[in-house]
């Protein structure tokens, strides 16, 4: 078996799992087992890809054996392998949550196939080495994500899906415009080839314009501040299994894009992008924190918290030193685990409420009947706020240390104060749900969504908090790899 399969399988398995899942739509159990098996094997092969790229070299596949600038290239380098492992871990637990939840929409015959297509789109966007191919995979992801949302039990699911899909279509227009502008200037869409040609002539008339358009695309994907409006509305109505994915791993597509733009594509303008990211990150941290405190709906609160946490990652990318980039990567990984677990817990509590909703006034006192969920929520909450012994502490520690290193005290003070906000909103939610007495006459359902998937994720959070050495070491290796864009270009064209 050729080593190339390590790049192809993480994309191919979810896709074919979706196709065969549709054929098996009459047999629900079989369809789920097939989907889970496809995701697990895909996860195994992406872990294999990460190990191989870590020990040996990046794996590059030229689809159809068309050599690099002409054909579509799939590039499994350290950064994309890391992102793929992160997202497929969370997507697998998302499947586990979906099968054990009380939502009606998971019994629709197309739910698991669409979920797998979501996984395909995300994995493909990370692994592709071609800008237009990125558009195709991103569109796949958006369409499946909003179909899943539109099928939600919540009667406002369609509105949420409409908002998400509309803003994403607009983002795709931005990306296509950038593709066109870059193609007109440089005559190629292959990312490695583009990087090479932008290095030789970095100041063509359309270069900056396409850079800004690409930034806008990734900002919509990551819900960075001026483009964050869709996110809280979306999460309030989306099925829990789906919103946990969108708020944790799919927003990381933008982070991946910013890392690629500053370290590979636009080296000349990287300073400009970084300055913008610091400003946007600080605004996001503050806005996300304050809006989360003001939110009256648990899932909305977590969505606002995502805006804040993405802000921390952006500041890390913005500082641009090796240590702060390491911090950004560690933060991104940890945040995906924490945030998906927290959203799953929110969904689990909503399923135990008398009316299925995550609004605080309905959830009040619901937690008395389920102390286990309370314990998990507390672990997730302190991870989100960055208190040891959880991984959230490690990511904030590395980030603040890198901030001290670059002596960016103003930004540091700002995000330090803002991270206290996360403690406030998490504890407020905890007290509302687990400390208050339920209003009389309100009955809680004895049973709801199972807690196995969030428990697994939070176990990972605590484990990474106690033993964070491997993750930080791996992130440092990735940063070393990103520091030499020439090796990426050589990997694509040399092989």
């Amino acid at each position: 078996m050729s080593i190339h399969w390590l790049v192809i399988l993480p994309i191919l398995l979810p896709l074919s799992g979706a196709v065969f899942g549709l054929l098996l739509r009459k047999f629900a159990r079989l369809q789920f087992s097939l989907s889970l098996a496809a995701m697990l094997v895909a996860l195994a092969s992406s872990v294999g890809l990460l190990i191989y790229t870590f020990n040996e070299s990046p794996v590059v596949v030229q689809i159809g054996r068309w050599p690099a600038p002409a054909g579509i290239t799939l590039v499994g380098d350290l950064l994309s392998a890391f992102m793929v492992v992160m997202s497929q871990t969370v997507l697998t637990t998302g499947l586990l949550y979906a099968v054990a939840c009380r939502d009606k929409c998971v019994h629709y015959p197309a739910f698991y196939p669409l979920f797998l297509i979501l996984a395909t789109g995300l994995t493909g966007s990370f692994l592709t080495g071609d800008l237009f191919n990125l558009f195709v995979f991103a569109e796949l992801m958006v369409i499946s994500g909003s179909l899943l949302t539109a099928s939600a039990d919540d009667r406002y699911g369609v509105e949420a899906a409409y908002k998400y899909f509309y803003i994403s279509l607009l983002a795709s227009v931005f990306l296509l415009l950038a593709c066109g502008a870059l193609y007109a200037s440089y005559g190629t869409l292959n990312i490695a080839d583009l990087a090479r040609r932008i290095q030789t002539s970095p100041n063509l008339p359309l270069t900056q314009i396409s850079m800004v358009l690409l930034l806008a695309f990734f900002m919509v994907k990551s819900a960075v501040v001026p483009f964050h409006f869709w996110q809280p509305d979306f999460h309030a109505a989306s099925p829990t299994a789906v919103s946990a994915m969108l708020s944790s791993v799919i927003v990381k597509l933008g982070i991946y894009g910013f890392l690629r733009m500053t370290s590979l594509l636009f080296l000349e303008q990287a300073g400009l992008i970084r300055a913008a990211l610091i400003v946007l990150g600080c605004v996001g941290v503050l806005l996300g924190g304050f809006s989360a405190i003001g939110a009256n709906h648990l899932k909305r609160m977590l969505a606002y918290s995502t805006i804040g946490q993405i802000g921390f990652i952006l500041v890390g990318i913005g500082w641009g030193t090796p240590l702060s980039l390491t911090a950004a990567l560690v933060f991104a990984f940890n945040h995906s685990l924490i945030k998906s677990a927290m959203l799953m817990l929110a969904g689990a509590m909503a399923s135990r409420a008398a009316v299925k909703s995550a609004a605080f006034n309905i959830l009040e006192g619901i937690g008395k009947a389920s102390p286990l969920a309370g314990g998990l929520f507390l672990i997730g909450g302190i991870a989100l706020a960055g208190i040891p012994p959880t991984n959230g502490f490690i990511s904030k520690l590395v980030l603040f240390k890198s901030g001290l290193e670059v002596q960016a005290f103003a930004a540091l003070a700002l995000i330090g104060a803002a991270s206290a906000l996360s403690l406030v909103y998490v504890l407020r939610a905890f007290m509302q749900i687990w400390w208050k007495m339920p209003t009389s006459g309100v009955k809680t359902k004895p049973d709801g969504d199972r807690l196995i998937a969030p428990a697994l994720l939070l176990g990972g959070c605590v484990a990474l908090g106690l033993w964070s050495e491997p993750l930080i070491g791996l992130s440092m290796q990735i940063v070393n790899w990103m520091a030499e864009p020439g090796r990426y270009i050589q990997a694509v064209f040399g092989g």
Partner: protein
Amino acid sequence: MNLLTALAIGVLFGVGIFQLLRRNVIRSVMGLVLISNAMNLFLLSMGAYNGEAAAYAGSSAQISDPTPQALALTAIVISMGGFAFVLAMLYIISLRYKTSDSDHIQELKH
């Protein structure tokens, strides 16, 4: 021809953005359709002036660049699927909310 293409793209973009910002959701989706058509025209114009002949293997004339044509084709297909889906969602929304004013379609905020 250059000027005509540029004007067509510009006008489509302008009208599209104007409609996009309207409060009526159906108009704003139509604005998105117009923008994405301007987009396709823009993609096509990227490689329109390199040559005249179609790019067959072995043709000796100055061939036109086939990549933007392939890109535009892909973009058209994807946006067609996307707009069918958006219009289907709008149909459900207009049935459920009994309005097409985007100011009244915000039950999620409450």
